[in-house]
């Protein structure tokens, strides 16, 4: 069974069809990339999956459960985490707090236990703190731990955002242009980390990406889009040589 299935997704904004009848599946344990020129509707698909946008038609199922009508915060609880194109971090807080916030989905305490900080709440905090440290270790963020986000360089913010998504301990991780704004070295590191995330943590990754090198290195399957519609889906080499894809990128 596929981890994620989308059937004939469509959405339009004020008469413009941003996504039309797009269907795809994401298999467990793979890296699935969506490519396409600007305005092809890639990020819109992510926003549909994380339920920020309402679908006009079509359906989505995650882990066999229909999520077409699920509220956005439930998506995270079900095991889909995401990052944003232009990083959406909690600016005034430290890296540590940002990562701790992601553990919200794992909370077992109630308002009352929190107010009194009963032993259960303390145990939970210690547990979260330890699990956060695992992610910090994985992505080498030790030196940024106590720093407020506001002062971090862009590359570090990108990594913190991935770390924050990992703290949700998701089954599916959506990365929206993870390499934008990174230098070539950082992009190369990123490809290793994505492999680590898939292989060591067993998390399935879907990403929207422009850097074809990165896509070719890490992806198992690639879906190419243009003007809101799917052009082709297949392995990276197939897609790179697909005539429709070449036409979409280079023109006739």
């Amino acid at each position, binding site marked *: 069974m596929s981890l994620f299935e989308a059937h004939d997704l469509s959405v339009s904004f004020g008469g413009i069809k941003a996504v039309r009848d797009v269907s795809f599946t994401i298999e467990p344990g793979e890296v699935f990339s969506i490519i396409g020129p600007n305005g092809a509707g890639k*990020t819109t698909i992510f*926003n549909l999956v994380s339920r*920020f946008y309402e679908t006009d038609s079509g359906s989505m199922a995650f882990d066999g459960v229909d999520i077409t009508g699920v509220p956005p915060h439930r998506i995270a609880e079900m095991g889909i985490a995401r990052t*944003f*194109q232009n990083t*959406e971090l909690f600016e005034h807080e430290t890296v540590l707090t940002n990562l701790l916030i992601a553990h919200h989905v794992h909370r077992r305490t109630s308002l009352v236990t929190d107010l009194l900080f009963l032993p259960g709440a303390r145990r939970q905090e210690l547990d979260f703190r330890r699990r956060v440290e695992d992610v910090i270790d994985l992505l080498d963020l030790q030196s940024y731990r106590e720093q407020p986000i506001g002062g971090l360089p862009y590359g570090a913010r990108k990594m913190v955002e991935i770390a924050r998504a990992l703290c949700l301990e998701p089954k599916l991780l959506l990365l929206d242009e993870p390499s934008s704004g990174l230098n070539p070295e950082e992009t190369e590191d990123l490809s290793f980390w994505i492999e680590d995330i898939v292989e060591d943590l067993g998390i399935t990754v879907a990403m929207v990406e422009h850097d074809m090198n990165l896509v070719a290195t890490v992806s198992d399957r690639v879906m190419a889009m243009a003007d809101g519609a799917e052009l082709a889906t297949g392995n990276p080499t197939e897609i790179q040589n697909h005539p429709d894809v070449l036409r979409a990128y280079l023109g006739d």
Partner: protein
Amino acid sequence: MEILQLLIIGVSQGCVYGLIALGFVLIYKATEMVNFAQGDMMMLGAFIAFSLIEAFDWLFAFVPVLSALPGASFAFAFLGTLLVMAAFGVLLERGVLRPMIGEPPFAVLMLTIGLGFVLRAVAGAIWGNQPRALDSPFAGGTFDIGGLIIGYENVAIVAGTALLCGALYLFFRFTRIGIAMQAASQNQLAAFYVGIPVKRVFALVWAISAAIAAAAGILVAPVNLIDPLMGFIGIKAFAAAIVGGFGSLPGAIVGGLLIGIAEPFVALHLPPGLSEVSAFVILLAMLVVRPQGIFPSLQQKKV
């Protein structure tokens, strides 16, 4: 007949709310700042007009031609007040609000609330706390149309509002700087890049808003007396702006009219004192039912 009579009172009061709301909306549209002191600027305008009328009365006593003309000092004072308040608006923008560009909206809101308190204290220091009557040619007289009593001041308010709105419309539609202001309000950065002096535009917006507030103050002065606390009706005007759809100029006037018309009817038919809060009840109802207002103009943030 009674309904018509109430309607007239409501419309003229609504125009005052609308004018103050217009000031709010203008500033918000152009600079994304919320000027909570708009009502107090109205108060200041009324007081300045009061003093200018006294000054012109004294001055014109030496000029027989002008002193023979009824309302001459009022007319001069009206124009003079608009100019003084426009200058005040520019100064305010330069001195107090420009450092706040780029700060969160909440900080600006708090700042203008503080500003309102300061203006009230300043007005209290200069003009004292007693209510004063403005010597307006519109005060007192009434038309009697088949038993329907219409005060001059009500006609003046409605006509003044209509004139101001018309002038503003022409200004934004046809003048170069008006169009530049529209551009700046849609996308400041882009406006900046195409060479629109955005900062000067901001100053101008504050000048216009302050002048509108002053006009509202002078028009309403024959109806209410002038005192340092008269600016509190700014809160109701604020409600009007939101009911109309914050960020929409016609919405400000329509919202003002809606609230202004509701008040006399509520006062007559519902429990006493309720008319004082009817603006807020309308506002809350609006926010629950249709939070974007009558004329929506804002959209959601994009991810």
